[in-house]
């Protein structure tokens, strides 16, 4: 049975003359991992703060656990776990004390917090760091501690705003593994990201956002099927020759995107397309055959790339 934890209709957020979120609708079900994918400034963080009952909505309706974030903010926040875009840890306190005092803000008894801290330190791979000051941790460790902190109240719904932005690839993979565990335990997660690989790895369902609006919605696979071709052939031509090469590519692919430094051909069989390029006598400096990703979906829908 589907149970909607978050429902938004015409949800809008304006700051003075800036419209950050422009009338969006979505439903997030218990047990799913739901993503907001879009570039910086698309309105993702504003939506997260409204769901988190820390920023009032300007117009439309929003319910979280069936409650009104304005009237019942305290109740909603007591059932949420929030991983903000910035860690906002207390750098002067020890790892353990950061978890402890955060638990106290949820009015949890000391004994309960102390038990949970052990589990959370294990979950975050920080057992050896419990008495270290936060300022001495690496970026990946701080991020894991921030996630552990968000779990101290055993939340029903976890909000993760750009969970791996700024981390190196190895730290990202460790973090994804932790988030995957939460997903397998049946947690409901809402994730914002501008990384298409992150969205593809973690999200059951996502919306693609651009300039405060939702431009597409679906599972990563269905979005790719609907808005892109199966494969992509990326061609890079020697400097100054892309113009003339474009003429010869004409009609080769059902869809073609020309970027500053390369040409993307959207096709069902990229190997065959590459053979055709050679047959037409074109010499590409490099040619990459790959599957379509959400990046291609975003490019198709907005004409721009996700990370600029």
């Amino acid at each position, binding site marked *: 049975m589907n149970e909607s934890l978050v429902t938004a209709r015409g949800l809008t957020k304006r700051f003075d003359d800036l419209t950050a979120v422009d009338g969006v609708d979505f439903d997030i079900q218990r047990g799913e991992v739901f993503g907001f994918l879009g570039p910086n400034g698309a309105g993702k963080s504003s939506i997260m*703060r409204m769901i988190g009952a820390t*920023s009032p909505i300007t117009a439309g309706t929003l319910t979280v656990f069936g409650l009104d974030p304005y009237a019942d903010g305290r109740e909603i*926040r007591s059932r949420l776990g929030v991983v903000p875009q910035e860690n906002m840890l207390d*750098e002067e306190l020890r790892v353990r004390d950061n978890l402890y*005092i955060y638990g*106290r*803000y949820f009015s949890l008894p000391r004994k309960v917090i102390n038990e949970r801290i052990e589990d959370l330190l294990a979950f975050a791979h920080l057992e050896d760091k419990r008495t270290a000051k936060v300022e001495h941790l690496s970026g990946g460790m701080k991020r894991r501690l921030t996630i552990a902190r968000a779990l101290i109240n055993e939340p029903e719904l976890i909000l993760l705003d750009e969970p791996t932005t700024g981390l190196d690839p190895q730290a990202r993979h460790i973090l994804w593994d932790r988030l995957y565990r939460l997903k397998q335990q049946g947690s409901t997660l809402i994730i914002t990201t501008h990384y298409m690989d992150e969205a593809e790895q973690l999200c059951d369902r996502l919306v693609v956002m651009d300039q405060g609006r939702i431009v597409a919605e679906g599972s990563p696979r269905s979005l790719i099927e609907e808005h892109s071709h199966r494969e992509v052939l990326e061609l890079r031509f020697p400097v100054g020759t892309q113009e003339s090469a474009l003429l010869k590519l004409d009609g080769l692919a059902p869809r073609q995107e020309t970027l500053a430094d390369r040409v993307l051909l959207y096709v069902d069989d990229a190997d065959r397309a590459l053979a055709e390029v050679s047959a037409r006598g074109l010499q590409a400096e490099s040619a990459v055959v790959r599957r379509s990703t959400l990046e291609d979906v975003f490019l198709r829908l907005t004409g721009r790339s996700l990370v600029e």
Partner: protein
Amino acid sequence: MTTLPLRIFEGQALNYTQVWRASVFSNFLNPVLYLTAMGIGLGSLVDRNPSAEFGGLDYLVWLAPGLLAATGMQSGAGEGSFPIMAGLKWIKTFPAIMNTPVSVTDLLVGLLSWIGVRLIMICTIFAGVLVIFDAADIGRALLAIFPAVLTGLAFAAPMAAFTSWIEDDTGLTMVFRFGIVPLFLFSGTFFPIEQLPDLLEGLAYATPLFHGVELTRAAALGIESALPVWQHVTYLVVLFAIGARLAQRNLTKKLRP
């Protein structure tokens, strides 16, 4: 009734455990240095020229409660500014706390209570130094803690309002340089304000530290204050209340955008 302000208080206390030794030491050293330099050093010169202005008291005895009130002011202004800026911008503990059930009002009540306790600590240490310097007997020194703490709170709340209104700390430096320091010098701490030109004397009456100094000196020395006690107290309480109300408004704007 929520107990969440107590949790904020607990968080502030936890942070304080990291620095308490240095803090207590400087809270003790500060009055010792001032009373030695001003009370004993300068006072020995002042006392060669006995003046009715000091009510027939040694300069040290007359000065000490003024310094206690001024310490309340400086501590209150300090606690109401930099830690608030740190919580909002530098360490960002306040935005993090906003993701928990704690409300802006819980946060503010907890912060002001903690500042109150810090002021009690600082002024109690100062009162101890008064006794050591034989500037007051124990009973009067303890009594003088109350007006000094009230003075501190009357500065802490407006400072918290100001700090949560401005965007960066340059404004704080200005307030200390052009607000707190002149008050410290011209509010009857070091000399009676009757010594000032008439215009400035009237101005001194309007400043909050003057009322704090009058109350603290009356408590420590058992003398009459310039105005009835209730008027001095009302001034400081009103200042605190206005500051707290504005702080709540400004914090809400910052933390619940």
